[in-house]
């Protein structure tokens, strides 16, 4: 079999084409958002919100409302609960996050178990890339376009929010609004991604691309290009692997992203392990006259 066949054969199937398109869309939006999440220090919050939206999605399904609405409500509810517990008890933030998101996630599981037509909803937990329908694809594309547009239009404000909230406040912007905006986009993006890789793996797509790009550049603008490009590439690689290995596609997409991170962690020119070791070595040699 020629290399071209390796690439082209899966594309004969409509479900594979839809899988690739959907995953790339989700990967791009998640990766864009992840650039801010890793810099604000909200990785754990991303984890929490992406799990906590589950009961909202199930309730939306039951009520026939858009998934995004349920996800937004429960995403904000989770953040409010975390803030309330942290602010009004002696429990620390990481514990508050752990309590709230696991409880809401568990509530989601309970709701799924008592909701008829379970098959659809179980896909939300583990993802169902290969079963994406035309209608799913459309919904994912619309939500992704909204999240993408908000992030691109407000990118400088969000970066300022991540870098220096006090200055944002000083020039009349509202850090509170910007934080809420980021959370709203997070909830929206969680809905996009959970239909692809499932709730459990969403957090990977929300953290790994941004963290990888952060190792590769000192320019935020470049992070915003590198992270989505890398994440999209990993998605395609993951799905092809899943086709040829007959293995879980969501899992392989995330494994591919983790592998990309590992490569950047080791070999990134400036911030990789080898790069920093070499630079330190050069400095040592340079500071000892006569040594080579």
């Amino acid at each position, binding site marked *: 079999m020629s290399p071209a066949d390796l690439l082209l054969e899966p594309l004969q199937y409509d479900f594979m084409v839809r899988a690739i398109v959907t995953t790339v869309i989700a990967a791009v939006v998640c990766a864009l958002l992840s650039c801010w999440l890793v*810099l604000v220090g909200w990785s754990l919050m991303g984890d929490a919100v992406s799990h906590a939206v589950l009961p909202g999605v199930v309730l939306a399904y039951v009520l026939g409302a858009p998934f995004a609405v349920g996800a937004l409500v429960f995403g904000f509810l989770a953040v409010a609960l975390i803030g309330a517990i942290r602010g009004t008890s002696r429990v620390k933030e990481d514990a508050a996050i752990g309590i709230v998101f696991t409880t809401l996630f568990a509530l989601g599981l309970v709701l799924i178990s008592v909701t008829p037509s379970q098959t659809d909803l179980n896909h939300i937990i583990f993802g169902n890339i290969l079963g994406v329908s035309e209608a799913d694809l459309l919904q994912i594309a619309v939500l992704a376009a909204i999240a993408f547009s908000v992030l691109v*239009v*407000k*990118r*400088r*404000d969000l*970066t*300022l929010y*991540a*870098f*220096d909230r*006090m*200055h944002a*406040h*000083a*020039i*009349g*912007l509202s850090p509170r609004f910007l934080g809420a905006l980021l959370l709203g986009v997070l909830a929206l993006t969680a809905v996009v991604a959970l239909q692809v890789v499932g709730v459990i793996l969403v957090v990977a797509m929300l953290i790994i691309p941004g963290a990888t790009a*952060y190792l590769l*550049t*000192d*320019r*935020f603008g*470049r*992070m915003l290009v590198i992270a989505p490009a890398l994440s999209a590439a990993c998605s395609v690689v993951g799905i092809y692997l899943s086709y040829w290995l007959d293995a879980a596609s969501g899992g392989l997409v995330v494994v591919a992203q983790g592998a990309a991170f590992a490569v950047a962690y080791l070999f990134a020119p400036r911030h990789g392990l080898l790069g920093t070791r070499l630079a330190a070595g050069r400095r040592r040699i340079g500071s000892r006259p006569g040594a080579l």
Partner: protein
Amino acid sequence: MTATTIPTIQVDDVVVRYGEVLALDGVSLRVRPGRVTGLIGMNGSGKSTLFKTVMGMVRPDRGRVLLDGAEPAAARRRGLVGYVPQSEEVDWAFPVSVRDVVMMGRYGRQGLTRRPRPADHAAVADALGRVELADYADRQIGQLSGGQRKRAFVARGIAQDARMLLLDEPFAGVDKRSEATIVRLLRELADDGRTVLVSTHDLHALPRLADEAALLLRRVLFHGEVSEALRPENLARTFGLDAVDGSVPDGGESGADQPDVGGPADDVLPDAPASREEESA
């Protein structure tokens, strides 16, 4: 001194509590334009809290703040207030260049997406020139020395054309040369008619830096001429020192609560440690 003596920063009887802790206990302060005012106090005296209250980040439990005679929110929207943060409040590994940071001073006057216009680029270049960082514009912010970092943030305030500039401990982790540059800059900004409020515990720099000084220990103990502020009895009250020998106390053992009279400064190593102010609420 400029003719106008109407205060641009007016703090009236401000009380701030963090839970059980009384951070500010009836602070009243009037800061005038065209002057550099030093805000002196030990760690925990409420300097940072006072700054955050003036900036509107902390809401006072009692009292009020007026900026330029109006509600602080209005002054902030007009871009009148510039802020130079303490070193430890900044993530120096953040992937922004020096130019990016200075450009953030222009956001208030830009459109929805903050796309820079030619005037913005010109203002940023001008500000970078004034703080002598033009050659460092494309460096990542953390690759600057302690003093250069401070100057980058001062440049942001200049690019913003802020009428009031608040600097929180600008001399912590800054070498003598950078300190002199910053002092000169702040003097120039005050001569422009701007209001410059500097919190510091570096008493050596004070006479060169400031026209007047306010001594803070949860309330304003003294506000007036620098020479008078530096009198031993005033410093003793401000820093809670028992032994006063008639001279400026020397930092010596320099516990965190002692005034820093120019201890070792470090302009080479990034992230030079500086003493920590109280957390904001």
